[in-house]
C-alpha cells in the first residue's frame, strides 16, 4: 500500500525526470521543509551534502557572512583554521558543506545514500530551550479541512493537549 500525496507525487515525478537525465536529484529536509537541489555537487566522493550559497539560503534560510553563518539574529562563526572544511571554491561557485556545519552546531543528520536525501534535525539548544522557560513548545497543524491552528492561539485558556493515532 503506497500513498502519494500531491506534493510527494510531484517530488517523485521530478526524481524520475532527473534519473532519466542520469543525474540523481539531491533532497534536503531542513526544519521539516523539503527542498530539491538542482545543481549537482562536484564532490562526488563525499557523503556530506555540499550546497551552493544560493541553495544554502533556499533550503535553510542561512546566509554566509563575514562574521559567520547567519539566520535572523543568530550567527555561528566558522573556526578560522578550519574554514576550508566548510567553504570550497570551484571555478566561479562557492560550495558549503552542510554536514560539517551540522557537526559544528551539533545537529543530528540522517542520510540515504542511494536516494541522495539528507534530513537535518534541530540543534539541542533549540530543542531543549523550553526546559528553561517551561513554555509548551508551539506548533501549527491543520485540522481535517486543512485550516491551520497553532497551540499559541489558545493562550488565555487552559489547554489539555492529547495525542492519539489511528494505528
Amino acid at each position: 500500500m503506497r500513498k502519494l500525496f500531491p506534493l510527494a507525487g510531484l517530488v517523485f515525478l521530478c526524481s524520475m525526470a532527473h534519473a532519466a537525465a542520469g543525474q540523481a536529484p539531491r533532497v534536503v529536509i531542513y526544519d521539516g521543509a523539503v527542498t530539491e537541489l538542482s545543481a549537482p555537487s562536484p564532490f562526488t566522493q563525499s557523503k556530506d551534502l555540499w550546497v551552493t550559497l544560493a541553495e544554502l539560503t533556499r533550503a535553510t534560510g542561512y546566509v554566509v557572512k563575514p562574521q559567520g553563518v547567519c539566520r535572523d539574529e543568530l550567527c555561528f562563526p566558522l573556526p578560522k583554521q578550519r574554514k576550508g572544511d566548510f567553504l570550497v571554491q570551484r571555478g566561479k561557485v562557492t560550495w558549503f558543506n552542510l554536514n560539517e556545519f551540522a557537526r559544528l552546531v551539533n545537529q543530528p543528520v540522517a542520510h540515504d545514500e542511494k536516494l541522495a536525501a539528507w534530513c537535518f534535525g534541530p540543534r539541542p539548544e533549540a530543542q531543549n530551550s523550553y526546559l528553561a522557560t517551561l513554555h509548551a513548545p508551539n506548533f501549527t497543524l491543520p485540522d481535517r479541512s486543512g485550516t491551520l491552528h497553532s497551540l499559541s492561539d489558545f493562550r488565555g485558556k487552559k489547554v489539555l493537549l492529547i495525542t492519539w493515532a489511528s494505528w
Partner: protein
Amino acid sequence: MPGWQIFYHELKDKNLEIVSVAQDTGGVKDAGPWIEKASAEYTVLIDEQHLVTKLYSMVNVPTAVWINEQGKIVRPNEVAFVDDRFKSYSHMDAGPYLDAIRDWVAKGERSSFVLSEEELRKRLTPVSPDRRMADVEFSLAEYLYHAGHGPEAIPHFKEAQRLAPDNWNYKRQAWLLSDADRDYGTNFTKEVQKLNGKPYYAPRQMPEPANKPK
C-alpha cells in the same frame, strides 16, 4: 474520542480547550474517519510528521500535557485515557485522572495536581542524543515513504526504532505502513507479549484526588 467530547462538554465553559492531535503519517486518509466518527467540538488536528511526538519527546499514545493560561506546562507527558477500555494496557483507572483535570480546571494553580517548577524540572529532561538521531531517521523515513520509496524507508524506520527502543509511536506507525511480520519480523501483539507483565504505559505519578471539586 466520544468520551472526550462528553468530558469537553462538561468543562468547555470553564476556560478549558482540548487540543487533540493525531500522530498519523497517513494524514487525513488514516485519521479522518476517526475524527468524523467522534464529531468533536474541541480542536482536532492532524500531524503527518509526528511533530508533537518529537517536540515533546513522547513515546506513546494517548499522551497528555497540561498547559496553563500563560502557555506554561503544568503537567508533562502522561498517559490519558477517558475510559477504561484499555485498562489491560494502562493498569490505571481513567476516573481519577478525569477528576484531577476537573480539580485543575476548578482551582487553577492551587490544584494539588499542578506540579511545582522543581518537580517539572525533575520530570522534563534534555532529549538524549540517541532520541535526537531517532527523530531525524524517522523524519527521513516518512519523507521517503511519501515520495513513493516505501521499501527504502524501512531501514530508516528500523534505525529510528533501534535508537529509541521505548518509543511505541515509531514502532507502531512504521508497522502500519507495511507488512510488520514480513518487513520487521515482529508485530504489535508479539512486542506486547515480550513486555512480560511490564507496563506498556509508564505509571502516572499522581496523588489521589483528596476532594472532588463540585
